[in-house]
């Protein structure tokens, strides 16, 4: 039998571990998103200058996101085994970075492409270099959309990060996995609840960052 009070008892008794798993989970996702931004935003910006490549890359990224995460881990194990990293943190990180690319690249690409051509024209006509135009005008104007992509990727990654426990990356997935194998509903529930809480906190935090990063004039 499963009751709320039992759930609370379990959480209280195992709080130390639960918090460790949550922090592991956040670290994995946080690092993955950071790397994904560093790759995806410049790539998205670059693609606005190359229509054909943009179509190809976005297509590949859309196909990628449909690959079930379990399958992706399965594919990566033999490949990364070559460098002795078949399971653990690294394959999980790589998978999360890959899954983040579609929302981040697509939103960045769309954000920059959607800047009013008249504004772009004015920026050029005034004598801004391409880089100045990007930094001073296009990225600030595109910021809400770029950040929306980051938020989508983050929430997506927090979910997929739980599955990565299968390949030994740690995190809240550990609770869910061992809960299932031991038939411990409390553990499974706790894992699920903390994944959701993490997602809510991350989204809230990113919303706050988005608000800070978006220029006042376009809010």
């Amino acid at each position, binding site marked *: 039998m499963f009751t709320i009070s039992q759930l609370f008892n379990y959480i209280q008794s195992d709080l130390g571990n639960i918090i460790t798993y949550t922090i592991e989970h956040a670290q994995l996702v946080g690092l993955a998103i950071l790397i994904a931004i560093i790759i995806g935003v410049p790539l998205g910006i670059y693609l606005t200058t190359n229509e054909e490549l943009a179509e190809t890359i976005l297509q590949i990224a859309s196909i990628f996101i449909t690959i079930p995460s379990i399958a992706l881990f399965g594919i990566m194990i033999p490949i990364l085994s070559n460098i002795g990293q078949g399971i653990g943190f690294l394959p999980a990180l790589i998978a999360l970075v890959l899954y983040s690319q579609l929302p981040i690249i697509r939103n960045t690409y769309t954000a920059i492409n959607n800047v009013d051509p*008249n504004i772009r*024209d*004015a920026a*050029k*006509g005034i004598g*801004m270099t391409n880089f100045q135009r990007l930094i001073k*005008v296009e990225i600030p*104007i595109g910021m809400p959309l770029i950040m929306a992509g980051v938020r989508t990727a983050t929430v997506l990654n927090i979910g997929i990060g739980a599955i990565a426990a299968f390949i030994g990356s740690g995190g809240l997935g550990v609770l869910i996995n061992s809960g299932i194998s031991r038939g411990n509903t409390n553990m499974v529930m706790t894992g699920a609840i903390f994944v959701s809480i993490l997602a809510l906190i991350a989204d809230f935090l990113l919303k706050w960052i988005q608000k800070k990063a978006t*220029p006042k*004039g376009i809010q």
Partner: protein
Amino acid sequence: MIEFQNVSKVYQGDVKAIDDINMTVNDGEFVILLGPSGCGKTTLLRMVNVLESITEGDIRVQGKSSKELNPIELRRNIGYVIQSNGLFPNMTIEDNTMIVPDLLGWDRKKKRNRFNYLMDLVGLNPDDYRKRFPHELSGGQQQRIGVIRAMASDPPVMLMDEPFGALDPIIRHRIQDEFLAIQQEVKKTILFVSHDIDEAIRMGDRIALIREGKIMQYDTPTEILTHPKNEFVSEFVGQDRVLKSMSLYSVQDLVDAFNLESSKQEVADTKMIHSDTSLRVAISMLLNQEADQIVIVDQQDNQLGSLTLNLIEKFLHREVKGKER
């Protein structure tokens, strides 16, 4: 000074947008590029600051060919105003206005003084608008900011593409007057695109009337109205071109033409008209009035004779028709 030397533009797909144009815009001159939609006005304008490449020929700005100059440097020395104002929504009004000085590395104090000066010029309180964003301003105010942004680093040359075209007629009229007054003071070399003959007549020192990428006539507004070179020009300026041309003359011109003498006699119960009124208004007054004559007075209220439709017709004959070849 802007010199166009055998300038042509062919877009991909073989659209010949500009066809062998030669013209010169002198220092301090206000020149209107006028013509129907699609005739190539915008293309010609954008070739000056190399937003469009030049297919053939050369354009020299202040004596230098745009081919010799770095386009970024060139553009920072040419003011550019577009119809949709192109203000940056993410920047405050002050940052928008001072973007070119900022790119040029002016210090804070110099930028602030310049901003205050320019805002005063267009009748906006600098402190009220400094921290506001473009979307918080009316269309007319945004367009004023667009104009002073182009003037920010005091460039000798300005390019304006239908800058007032999106404004409603009353606001447009007011901004046109405002801008003319500013131009009296700053004497920029201006190339200004318009498709509106009335705007062209009001604003331009000279008008280049364009059709399908070719210049049909490049002349003062008076010449264009009174001596259209060909069928296209006379059709474009309209059937009422003679009436339009009347707005370019004042009653004083008529007084000078007929050497009307001033006198001090008192005439009761007659309409009076100041000698600086345009002839177009004078005609309208005569047509409206029961009286068939109006007394002309100068600034000191000296009477200069009486104005009749008959007299205007004579003037018209001398000034307009008399010169016709």
